[in-house]
Every structure is written in structure tokens, then in C-alpha cells.
């Protein structure tokens, strides 16, 4: 699907969410969720579009978009690795894992590698405390990880598609 068509399809998803709430201003967060799922991040063009459609001022939308940790205004890498930094994970060795990731992939919380292959994020708590330390690799939870396992799994994740 060429770019215009796919953009158009994604724009339809956003419209659908706004229509579901009757284009009222309180649908803003649900709409931003749809934009992020469809486009991977909240780009300015979409923010302006949603501002127009829901009649919410631009500055207010930007305020909401930057308030919530889940939303991101930067394009994401092809693969995302989310490391849980909840209490249970933290005391089971998250600092060591963070430094291992920094050494091997040169990225810290919120960064994306230059080759745009990997985005590294941290999450407050993904609720898998029974498997601390836990990590989510492209949506799949990996439990009881160690620095070595993390480096290996991320490496395989970002290199397996070449």
C-alpha cells in the first residue's frame, strides 16, 4: 500500500475513535492512543488534525501529550525494548541491566539507536513482579532476565530480520 493510502487508512482509524465519542473534547486521550498505535508516535501534523477535529487548543493537546509517559513525540525504532524499573525488578538488578544495555547498544531510557533499529524505554511497572526482573521485547514479556540474557535477546531481536 503506497504511503498516501496507508496514511489514509490510519487516518480513518483516528476518525473512527473520534466519531465513537461524538468528537467531544474528552475523547482526546483515547484519540491520542489511536494515533500512537497507528503512526507509532504523535507527530505534529496529527496533533493539529486532532486539535481541529475535537476543537481542543493546540497548546492544551501538547500539554496532554507530554504529561503521559506512554505517549511519545519522537518516531520509534523498528524494535522496542521496555525494561521494567518497578521496585521488585529494581532490587533484583535493574541497574546492572541498564548499564549492560548502555554498553552494548549505546542507548539509555527513551533513546533510539542511530540505525533506528532499537528504541529503549523503561516502564514504571508492567505487573510481572513475580518474574522480576522483567522486560517487554516487541510486546512479548521476558521474565527473570539477567544482563547477559537481555543483551542476547535484544541482539537477536534487532538482527534477526536482516
Amino acid at each position, binding site marked *: 500500500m503506497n504511503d498516501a493510502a496507508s496514511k489514509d487508512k490510519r487516518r480513518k482509524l483516528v476518525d473512527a475513535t473520534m466519531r465513537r465519542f461524538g468528537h467531544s*473534547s*474528552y*475523547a*482526546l*486521550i*483515547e484519540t*491520542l*492512543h489511536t494515533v500512537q498505535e497507528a503512526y507509532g508516535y504523535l507527530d505534529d501534523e496529527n496533533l493539529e488534525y486532532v486539535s481541529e477535529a475535537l476543537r*481542543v487548543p493546540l497548546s*492544551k493537546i501538547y*500539554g*496532554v501529550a507530554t*504529561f*503521559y*509517559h*506512554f*505517549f511519545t513525540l519522537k518516531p520509534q525504532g523498528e524494535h522496542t525494548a521496555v525494561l521494567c*524499573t*518497578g*521496585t*521488585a525488578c*529494581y*532490587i*533484583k538488578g535493574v541497574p546492572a541491566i541498564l548499564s549492560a544495555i548502555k554498553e552494548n547498544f549505546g542507548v539509555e531510557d527513551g533513546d533510539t539507536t542511530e540505525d533506528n533499529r532499537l528504541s529503549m524505554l523503561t*516502564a*514504571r*511497572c*508492567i*505487573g*510481572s*513482579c*513475580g*518474574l*522480576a526482573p*522483567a522486560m517487554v521485547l516487541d*510486546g*512479548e*514479556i*521476558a*521474565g527473570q532476565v539477567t544482563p547477559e540474557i537481555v543483551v542476547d535477546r535484544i541482539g537477536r531481536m534487532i538482527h534477526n530480520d536482516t
Partner: protein
Amino acid sequence: MTPEEFKKIGEAHQKKRESFNYNINVCTAAACVSLQSEKVKEELIKQVKEQNKKDDCRVSGTGCLGLCASGPLITINKNKALYGGVKPEDAPEIVKNIAKKPVKRLQIPTDMPFFARQTKMALEHCGKTDPEVIGDYLAKEGYEALYNCLTTMEPNEVIDMMVKSGLRGRGGGGYPVGLKWSTVHKAVGFKKFVICNADEGDPGAFMDRSMLESDPHSIIEGMAIGAYAVGASHGYVYIRGEYPLAIKRLRAAIRQAERQNFLGKNICGTPFSFDVEIRLGAGAFVCGEETALIASIEGKRGTPRPRPPYPAQFGLWGHPTLINNVETFANISPIVRKGADYYASIGTERSKGTKVFALAGSINNTGLIEVPMGITLREIVFEIGGGIVGGKKFKAVQTGGPSGGCIPEEYLDMKVDYESLAQVGSIMGSGGMIVMDETSCMVDVAKYFMDFCRSESCGKCAPCRVGTAQMYNLLNLISQGKATMHDLALLEELCDVVRNTSLCGLGQTSANPVLSTIRFFRDEYLAHINDKKCPAGVCAIEHKEEAVL
């Protein structure tokens, strides 16, 4: 729909289940799913077909059984066998001797304290029903409590039942549920709302997730009963964006409940109508606070506003609103079914009923447990929890997350309830219980929680946004061995200012982890400050002397 009709559906379902000799239930809650329990389930189904035992064995998913440490978990209800750490390749062996003796190497004793010492109320059906099939829920007297309330009880009677049961809010504050319901009931307003707070922002707490994934219907039923009691017609479940599986299960459950007319217009043929919508959180711990949650549902930045007025009078879009936690709603239908007196007979004098705790950290049996209020910490950590990993020395247990405190060894025999936890400077919180051994440094733990509060502060009021940043900087100095006793005094003064002048609970309780670690582990602070040493060897002490007072 009359009770006979939905009982019939339940029974039909139960009969179908019993028509099989063996029901193999595979735990499909997020923790086990992340250990490939879905693959185990597929493999088992394949094996049952290959060993043509299709009419003899039935494989189905089920909710969380609690012991995440040895997931994926499987129960076979014919011979009460419980398997742990099951891999897909174990499937042939399990199916092969389904009729014979259970497979020894996979077996977990079901009589061990972890299971025996629990009293299940909120987690009653978890692990016994398939969360994606309403029939299973109906087979276990599902929605009967709602039906009884709608047909035989006045809203006031429902509220009195809650008052008599002594149930208190499970979100952390412990506000009496009956009192809150009667306030919303009395509030004047042509439109009222019920909100289920499933934001569960406390790191280390995962009971709400597990309940939503394992038994979503009991939450829906609890909300419907609450709505009937306070006179609300519309409900929201505000759930974290980080729980995709729980959202999927809850959405399916709401659709099924609507189809069976337990939600929507004229529920079960009565004049009462109530529908429920899901609202996604987007990663903001402060949105666990009621007024911030309301602002978030209204599509705004999740910043709290001063109370009073409380949401019970002035809530969502200015209408009276009842807000309760997931676990609170999960307790409603058991109370209606088993009676307020039965519920009030469990627990202590002022903290009634049971509490679900999420055991994590340096403990062998990590997972979910539901225990009566009044149980001691020692029983939880050493008997149910199976003691410290690798036999290391117990140091402290942290309850209440970033608003709670660290409880040392000398209080292990303290009864766990709202009042006693407050006395040791902690709070019940949502129930996260992180066990720490000698390898954890208390200054580092305090710094970790302050870092959490600093980055989750909404920034609206100066004491919290600046206070937490200042306290974090001071804790950083201490953990780097660059601090002086003057800095420790500054830290304690800031704790007092932030706790007393902050607008909402986040700021008001952000000092608790610091105050409780200073109170019980002051020697560790002094070691970092005076001896420039970290006893647990966690903090990186820099030896450059800073030219300070």
C-alpha cells in the same frame, strides 16, 4: 432474564465441564503467558487429539493461581494435581498418564502453606473459571448477588450491608466503603457515575491486573451493585495502558455481560440500567489519585484538585461519582452472597475481611496471596512466602509502594492491618509487598522511591515538584558519600514541609519511604555520611571530598 434462566446457563455449562473426566486448566494470566503458557495449552490440546482422548479430556485456560514463581501452572481437577514450570514439551507425558499417577517431577504440593493459609474472597474464582467464558462464572453463582440486590433489596439495604461488613477501600486509603457509598447515594444529582480505579500505579503491585485477567466478571458485578446502591447509570473502568491482556479480557467480559443483559438497559428485566466503558490510562502514577483520575477521563492532564469538595459530591464532569479500587469491587459480590456478618467475622477489630498481597522481591514464592487481615508479617514472609531466596538474612519488607515504608525485622510479628501499618510509618497501599534481604541498601531504596515520586509528580504544586527534586538531590549526595549531617537535617525538614503542604496524596506521602528508612535504619544513613561507606555495598561511594559546610 430470571435467575432460573441464568442458573440454567450456568448448570448447562457445568454439566458440559463435568462430562469430561479430566479438566486440564492452564493458567493464562500475564505472568504465566510470558512463560509461554499459551504454547503449553496449544501443545496439550494437540496431544489430547493425538492420543485421541478428546471426549475424555478437556483443556481450557484459567485465571491466576497465585504462585507466579513456578509458572506456567496447570491444575487437573479430577486428581487435584498441580503442575508447575510446565514446558510445552511436557504435554505428551501429562496427557499420557492423565488417568494414572500425576507426573512426579512437575508436581507442586497443594497443601503447602502458600495455598493452605489463604482465605479466598476477592480471588474466589481465580484459577477455577475460564475468564473468557461467562458460563464458568455463572456456574459459580455468578451475578446472583446482583440479581438479589436488584430484586429483593433497596439501595439503602445494600449500603447498610456494606457498612455492617466493615469493608474498607482496598486502594490504599482504607476509607470505609459503606460511608462512601452512602455519601454518593445522598448526593443530589440527576446523573451519577461509578468509576473502577484500575490504574494500579504502585510499582511491585499486580493484584488488580491479575483479578482483571482472571475474573473480570466479579469486578463488573461489583460495579453494577455499587451503581444500583448509589443510583448511578454509567460506569468507567480506568485501566493502565500497560496491561494489554487485562484490557482484552475486560472488554470481552463487558460484551458478554451486555449480551446476557447483566449490563445495559433494564438489567435482568428490572428498571435498573447501567453500562460500563473502558478508559485507558497512559502512564501517569498520579492518576491513581481520584481527582487526577477524573481529570484524565475528562481528557485533560492528570493533575489533582484540592478536596473538599470530594468526588462523592462533585466528581466526573461535576456529577456525584463513586470511585473504588478493583479489589474493593471484587469483594462486593462475595459479601452479598455470604453475608456481611460472615465477612465481618474475618480480620481484626477495625480492619475487616481479607487483603490481597503481591509478594515479590527476594522471596521464594513470589506471586499473589489473599490472607485475612490481622495475619502477621512473619507468617506471610516465612510461611506463605517460603522465606528469603538463597537463605539470605531478612532485612525489611516494603509495603505501600512510593507512599509506604520499610518495616524491619523487629516488627515481623506485628498484625497486618490499616492501623498497625500506619503506626510503623507505612500504609497498606494497594498491597504490594517487596521483601528485601541484606543485599539491599536502605538509602538506595529511599532514593529509588524519591526518584519515582520526583518523576511522577504532576508539577502543579511547588512543595511536591520542587520538594521531591530537592530530597532526591540530598539522597543522591548521601548515597555518593558526599553529604554532611547538615544535609540529613535538611532532608528531614523537607520531608515535613512536603508532607504537610502538598496538594494531593502523592506529595503528602512521598516522604514516607525516607522517614521510615531514617527511623529504622538510621545507622545506614550515618555510615554513608560519617564513614563514607555503604554497608550493603550497593552505593558507589566517590572519595572526592566536596568543599561544603
